[in-house]
């Protein structure tokens, strides 16, 4: 089935069954591998993307349910001021270790800051607890979210 989605502001057309999770469309059909497979059951957050700016687990989102809503992935999140701030803070505080979960962490953090520009610790807990990091970078993730929040919009 030919489908067109707007991904990172650009139209992308492809053939995929409507029940296919967006994750596999991104990775295996479109070759956009920045979005990661972690668990397949929306338990780890590695596959987090934005649908109309909200953080969504793409591993359980059928591509047919996206319709005309805007998809943003890690490859495109830096185009928004809030996404760029998060990426910058992540590097400044050297959050990343293996990095495999960090696409999802950054997408979750960017969605949090877009909705809640000055999150407190409980806001961070609520928004980020769905994202597992096996390297255990949580201390720095928390600090980087706060640092990104403290930067003026560029």
């Amino acid at each position: 089935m030919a489908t067109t989605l707007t991904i990172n502001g650009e139209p992308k057309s492809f053939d995929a069954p409507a029940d296919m999770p967006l994750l596999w469309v991104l990775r295996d059909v479109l070759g956009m591998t920045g979005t990661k497979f972690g668990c397949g059951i929306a338990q780890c957050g590695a596959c987090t993307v934005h649908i109309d700016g909200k953080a969504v687990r793409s591993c359980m989102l059928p591509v047919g349910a996206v319709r005309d809503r805007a998809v943003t992935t890690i490859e495109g999140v830096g185009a928004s001021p809030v996404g760029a701030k998060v990426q910058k803070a992540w590097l400044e505080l050297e959050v990343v270790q293996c990095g495999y979960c960090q696409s999802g962490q950054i997408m979750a953090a960017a969605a949090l800051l877009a909705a809640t520009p000055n999150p407190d610790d409980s806001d961070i807990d609520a928004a980020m607890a769905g994202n597992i990091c096996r390297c255990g970078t949580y201390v720095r993730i928390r600090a980087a979210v706060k640092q990104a929040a403290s930067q003026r919009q560029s």
Partner: protein
Amino acid sequence: MTIAERNFELVSRRALLTGGLAGGFLLAFHLPAGALPVNEPVQPPDDTAGKFAPNAFIRIDDSGRTTLVMPQVEMGQGVYTSISMILAEELDADFSRVALEHAPPSDKLYGNPLFGIQATGNSNSIRAWWPHLRKAGALSRAMLVQAAAKQWQVDPASCTTANSEVMHRDSGRKLSYGALALAASNEVPPKDVPLKDPKDFGLIGKPLKRLDTPDKVNGKAVYGIDAIMPNLKFATLKACPVFGGKVAKVDDSAAKKIPGVQKIVVLDDFVAVVGDHMWAAKKGLDALVIDWDEGPNAHLNSNDIWRDLRAASEKDGAVAKSVGDIAKGLATGERLDAAYELPFLAHATMEPINATVHVTADLCEIWTGTQVMTRVQSEAAKAAGLPVEKVIVNNHLLGGGFGRKLEADMAVAAVRIAKQVDGPVKVVWTREEDIQHDVYRPVYRDTIAATLANGKIVGWKYRVSGSSIMARWFPAGFQNGVDIDGVDSAIDMPYDIPNFHVEFVRAEPSAVPTGFWRGVGPNNNVFAIESFMDELAKKAGKDPVDFRRGMLGKNPRLLAALNLAAEKSGWGQPLPDRVGRGVSVQPSFASFIATVVEAEIDEFGEVKLRRVTCAVDTGIAVNPDTVVAQLEGGLIFGLTAALYGEVTIDKGRVQQSNFNDYRMLRIDQAPIIEVHVIKSGEAPGGIGETGVTAGPPALRNAIFAATGVALRRLPIDRSLLAGKRS
């Protein structure tokens, strides 16, 4: 970038190097028996034409582009940056302009000097390579200086180097390394070369930004699972849920009807579905009706495994170390006995197990992320039925390793599938398959008897019972009944004990495959030793920190770490009800670490981590920020296991399957962590696994302090803690 362009980039990154090492210093490494013959190329040679290529690690072209080839793999531990810092330090290279390459498989060129094979593990990358890479950098620098001095007709001793330039002190003339690259290629390296005095280090010891992280925040980093190439197919697999079981019969009629399913591959021990994408492969796999021959393990369960291990642990073991007179020691003073038990654990790397393979009649090419490049190559060669030199391994970043990727099984499985597929195929395991067919951290049982006199330990008899991973993985590490990893941190305990005896009992769990898990042998031994230390302190009527201090007189580095951690954690200061502090110390991996965990235990037995304070003397900290990060992350990794980690077996099957029932610590449960790095001029120690071993005993001791409950098993059993307070 299109898929085709991406493929080109991946292929062009293919292992590049076979150039020999200048000065032959690599030959000084102890190569294992059976290493590849010298000069036998294992990969197409890299193109060193027009480049200064003095050894296997450094390439400088005439534009000055400096490429450093990484003998160890990057799995989050920051080693690409640390190794680059060591090379660039002695080379005096402009660190802002270095580029990195993954090394190809070659034990000869890139064998870990401490293992003899190309492996990344045991927190030893920096320890293993420190002297060798410094020398590689210094020799290369000397050749560049010689080339410049010749051009200027001056004494090389009158030249200095900095930022990829040679300078002549008196005349002020300068030549860049790029301009010197060709001339330096013709220079003979000096026989010997002085290394820098650590006080002159410009890079080492500075908290530099990691080189691998910018592409990890924008989606560009390529892990093994991200390999893409034209005509790529996707596959996922299912092994018999019962260990050792076989495929009996497969009905694939429904699976074949699923759009995108291309092929069903039925092998004796697993079934795979190949499709146009992972979704087709997964749906196809789910639609298969598979009858399994469950074999002899169909009734195996955890209770049987524990019964067998407990029985084995009651017998005498092979003696790993014995000092003084243990019989006399145990007959002196007050005696305490205990046994500690640790469960099976899965690795659960965030990047699920995968390998991409293309098999043709005379070549097998693999794209993956592995801790054991040459082992993947040789095992894949066997599976493909090809000579080793016909197997190309392209290594990538690892989305976590934790010891899981010290195995080659994922590559072998992918080769067996790829042999039946026309074109390349990416084999990705589901998380369920990853958890249920791991190579597990073994179950361990540690029995300890110790005696106390005048507030000190006079006799210590310690017996480790569990799997010998070395016997399978590296047989030279299992000799005379002792697994050198299994007793690591037990035979070299930090305390001054006059009568001291350590045994190892090899007790392999029935049917369950076991392997290395981050923290390796010490994650068992440090837990048992440091837990028992608190029980002994209580029996002696002493504060746990003071009790340890009294026996660390011969270990000043660890004593200093303990004192610093005690001070920074506020040890001894009052705490609220139901809150306790626990301490652990360890000399493991040649780093000296003291850790204090502060935890609160509620009336239902739930444990809340409040704060962790860690003091570390790891010798020269090559990149101090990486040392801090590895401890922060390692502590979370170990505390996760202490709080939640257990793989259990019933009816021959692993009962856990994904993150819903194999639980991970999340950000809302993470404590505040403070790491204090002690300045040191000693040689660098290991750091990647140290936090993993440090966290669990310190938490267990915090619970002991808060509740009075002496836990002797992990994970923490909350039912034992409910309603308890000290």
